[in-house]
């Protein structure tokens, strides 16, 4: 260490920058705490068993959100079922097959473009493309979500495909396996973690999505089974929240839904963290 003391101006610079850092981090934490505290405090008292297990009824003038919960589950299932093969397949093509650098960069550019497009535009295009054929329905909404989540699944699968050691592939080829067999038995099992991470991220994104669903899936509250549900219009939790808060002024119900969404968001984040931790640990072994 030199004995020369740090000059006052440098000291001031260090102090100010350190202070700004501390303030910013505190603000971010305070915002997160406030949001979760406020929403839970305003929403949990409005949650009741009746709200969760009934559908809205004009006769008894009650509101229930069971249909919205079911619709959310249906739309997540349907969207994942379609987007998984598409996204994972595209990732396999990019890492295992594609020899043409030009084509790879075109596909990756397309994926980046897709992830930058705002959901309201997806909603609009979904309305033009899918509702024309399918009518306003959960399926039309799910297909819109498929396009939105394609880049997510593609990216996470691609990242984990890159971590499958090249020697595994060479070993399998050396034993005389064809390319498809190698992909099926060696490569795909090795990238399960990427696919699962992608699924969790997509579930989170679908849970929070509303603008893309407003004009594609509509906002009906009918109680349906999976297949009838997909064919008919229905509100997911987020859309229901919007309608109850903005159009009907039912803030109690809106906050109850917001609290549910908040808890689900926490659960999704926690699962993502745990899964990531588990796979890292397994890989390190």
């Amino acid at each position: 260490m030199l004995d020369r003391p740090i000059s006052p101006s440098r000291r001031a610079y260090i102090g100010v920058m350190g202070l700004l850092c501390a303030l910013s981090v505190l603000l971010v934490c305070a915002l997160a705490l406030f949001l979760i505290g406020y929403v839970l405090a305003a929403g949990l008292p409005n949650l009741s068993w009746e709200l969760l297990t009934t559908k809205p009824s004009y006769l008894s003038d009650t509101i229930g959100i069971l249909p919205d919960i079911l619709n959310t589950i249906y739309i997540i299932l349907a969207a994942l079922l379609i987007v998984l093969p598409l996204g994972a397949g595209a990732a396999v093509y990019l890492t295992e097959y594609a020899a043409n650098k030009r084509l790879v960069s075109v596909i990756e550019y397309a994926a980046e473009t897709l992830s930058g497009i705002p959901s309201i535009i997806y909603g609009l295009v979904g309305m033009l493309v899918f509702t024309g054929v399918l009518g306003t329905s959960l399926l039309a909404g799910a297909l819109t979500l498929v396009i939105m989540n394609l880049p997510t699944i593609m990216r996470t699968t691609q990242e984990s495909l890159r971590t499958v050691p090249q020697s595994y592939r060479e070993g399998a080829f050396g034993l005389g396996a064809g390319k498809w067999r190698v992909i099926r038995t060696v490569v795909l099992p090795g990238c399960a973690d990427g696919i699962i991470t992608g699924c969790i991220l997509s579930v989170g994104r679908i849970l929070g999505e509303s603008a893309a669903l407003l004009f594609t899936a509509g906002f009906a509250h009918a109680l349906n089974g999976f297949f009838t549900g997909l064919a008919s219009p229905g509100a997911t939790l987020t859309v229901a929240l919007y309608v109850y808060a903005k159009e009907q002024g039912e803030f109690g119900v809106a906050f109850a839904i917001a609290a549910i969404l908040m808890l689900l968001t926490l659960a999704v984040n926690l699962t993502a963290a745990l899964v990531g931790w588990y796979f890292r640990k397994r890989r390190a072994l």
Partner: protein
Amino acid sequence: MRSRKQLLETAVHGIFLMLGLVTVGCVLLITVYLVVSGIPAIRQIGLVPFLLGDTWESTAAQPSYGILPFILTSIYGTAGAILFGVPVGFFAAVYLAKLAPTQVKSIVEAAVSLLAGIPSVVYGLVGMLVLVPGTRALFHVPDGASLLAAIIVLSVMILPSIIKVSITALEAVPKEYEDASLALGATPIETYFRVSVPAARSGIAAAVVLGVGRAIGEAMAVMMVSGNAANMPSLFESVRFLTTAVSSEMSYSSGLQRQALFSIALVLFLFIMLINAVLNFFLKGQKEG
């Protein structure tokens, strides 16, 4: 036997190629649909009156379709969100990437992930019941649903993307740069702000551009707090963004009005494409170091 195996391989290759091209197909589909459905209204109204007209009265007897208020509102709203969000996000990212102890870092990062995961309608709801009355009481304006409320909601919503992308950029700065600066007698904070931040400037710029994209594309939260009147933008007045202009009239629109909504979406899409191009430019700069 051998030829059957080859046939299978070719077929599988073809299938994967098709799956790979789905994304390209989707981008083309979106572009074509937006252009095809957005052009007719612009041709009928005229490009200049459409883009630069300052009154939007789509349901009047003599309808006028000028979207300048929406364009300006979107630009002002985004600029405001950047003004508040970027400094906070930047300093928080420097702290998290360089200064924070491991445990603090993981806790704050969990908070950031939570902010990123909260659905936009929840932001809108909290904004409606906290910010809107708050603005009204604090600034003594008749209605709190205003550009200011939207700016505050947007600046919170873009924080997570700015923080996450900046952290990635800062963590990619080679350790040697920092060691050299520390060895020359700079303190840690001086090193991080005068060496690491300039070295990560491409990535941080990309974070800002990403924030711009998020802010300009947000619809639902903004719809719930901005009041939705087609005024020219002013901080304390009810305003309408490009995104909310599309969604607020879509359900009951018809004819030229509906087509004009598609044209607004096309304008929004062009903005986004421009932002994407800028984003790619900065990301490329980051890769090349």
